[in-house]
């Protein structure tokens, strides 16, 4: 009987500690991208990126609804969803990774930290490894995160017809800018 009680004690202890681990999240992160081609510069904005950062392990994850990208021109948005991203088939873009130099950071002190993020980016049903630089700024109890990196659309199985090769760039620059809040259960 004692043993059972003891086991439950340990169990509850495990659950308790794990939920205390400090995590940060956002549901309204900004992820924008620019396609700068010869004839046309296309910009799109998404203000509903979801992300979670585990401040204990340095792991972080992002999810973005492809349909939530807003373009200046309605037709661009339609082509983006219908012809390039096939957003009804692949509704989300997801990143899962971690901060490479996490051991060297002390997030309890305020300041701005340069970080290297490595992980896997899944877009349009294709997953590719990504390594990029970014920064974390401790802002009171929140963490501001930002990063800029580029991807080749071809790597993600997105074909650009030759008719529009001067309108849509092969390399797209992605800008991430978000504010993490402490996650409370």
């Amino acid at each position: 009987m004692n043993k059972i009680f003891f086991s439950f004690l340990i169990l509850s202890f495990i659950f308790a500690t794990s939920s205390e681990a400090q995590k940060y999240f956002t549901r309204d992160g900004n992820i924008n991208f620019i396609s700068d081609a010869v004839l046309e510069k296309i910009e799109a904005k998404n203000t509903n990126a979801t992300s979670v950062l585990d401040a204990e392990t340095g792991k972080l994850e992002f999810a973005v609804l492809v349909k939530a990208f807003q373009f200046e021109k309605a037709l661009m948005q339609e082509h983006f969803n219908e012809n390039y991203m096939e957003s009804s088939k692949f509704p989300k873009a997801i990143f899962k990774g971690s901060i490479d130099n996490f051991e060297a950071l002390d997030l309890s002190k305020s300041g701005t930290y340069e970080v290297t993020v490595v992980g896997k980016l899944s877009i349009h049903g294709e997953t590719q490894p990504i390594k990029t630089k970014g920064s974390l700024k401790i802002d009171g109890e929140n963490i501001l995160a930002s990063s800029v990196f580029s991807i080749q659309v071809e790597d993600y199985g997105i074909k650009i017809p030759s008719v529009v090769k001067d309108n849509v760039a092969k390399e797209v620059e992605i800008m991430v800018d978000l504010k993490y809040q402490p996650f409370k259960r």
Partner: protein
Amino acid sequence: MKNTFFTLCILICSFLNISAQEDDLLSLLGEEETTEYIDAAFKTNRVIHGHSIESTSEGVLDFKISHRFGMVNTGFHELFGLDNAMVRFGFDYGITDRLTVGVGRNSFRKIYDSFIKYKFLRQSKGQKNVPITAAWLTALDFQGTKNNPDPDGKASSRMAFTHQVILGSKISDGFSLQVMPTYVHRNLVDFNEKNDIIAFGIAARQKLSKWVAVTFEYYLTPGDQLPENKYSSFSFGFDIETGGHVFQLHFTNSTAMTNRGFITESTGDWADGGVHFGFNVSRVFTAKKRKN
């Protein structure tokens, strides 16, 4: 024995607990249910002659140039109809994402046409699940020929009105279907014709690739509403999209491009080769940029 069992239990539990967390941080936030509106059931706001459930986006001007050549059965002398062409120029404008207005000018009987179209239901899934898109269309045709077809010279005799409900659904990524119960009123008709015509339209689109689709459109006029020399409009064609243009190439038994003309006055008989080759070219301009 009991001891080992419990220890094992704890181990498994703690392992599950940790692994669940490490695998998927995002699951902590839970799935936020959103409503996703289904767009682009058709490549443009026309299927062939008639309207599709699509409207012109807010602030977008859609310039359309359409041709219907002569009938194929006119033979080589007329180069299978290519020597003759009916032309329509038109502008459609999206006042909001749901409300579209448009005007056009047809060489056929010098008809000026105009319409107003309102999308009152949008197909969506997720939090709000709506299986169809629905729109209302009201259109006016005005015959601008020098000679009034009415011997009494009343201007109203040049007019015809169309009211239509368009109900459609993007059933899969590639396939869309719509039905269009339609009422056409012509103020002046020949002695053997009826002023009021009820028609049931059906139209579909099947994508062949990301940029090409095959379309069909049929306006059935049941019973003996049409005189013997007039036929229900039947058309099929291809939509080809390139950047800012949509090219629609088609074969049809209808000569006119306005509602009155193709729904109630199609003279071509498919069985007899009374078919026109035609095209619509749509080019969109963003007149008002969207706020981000």
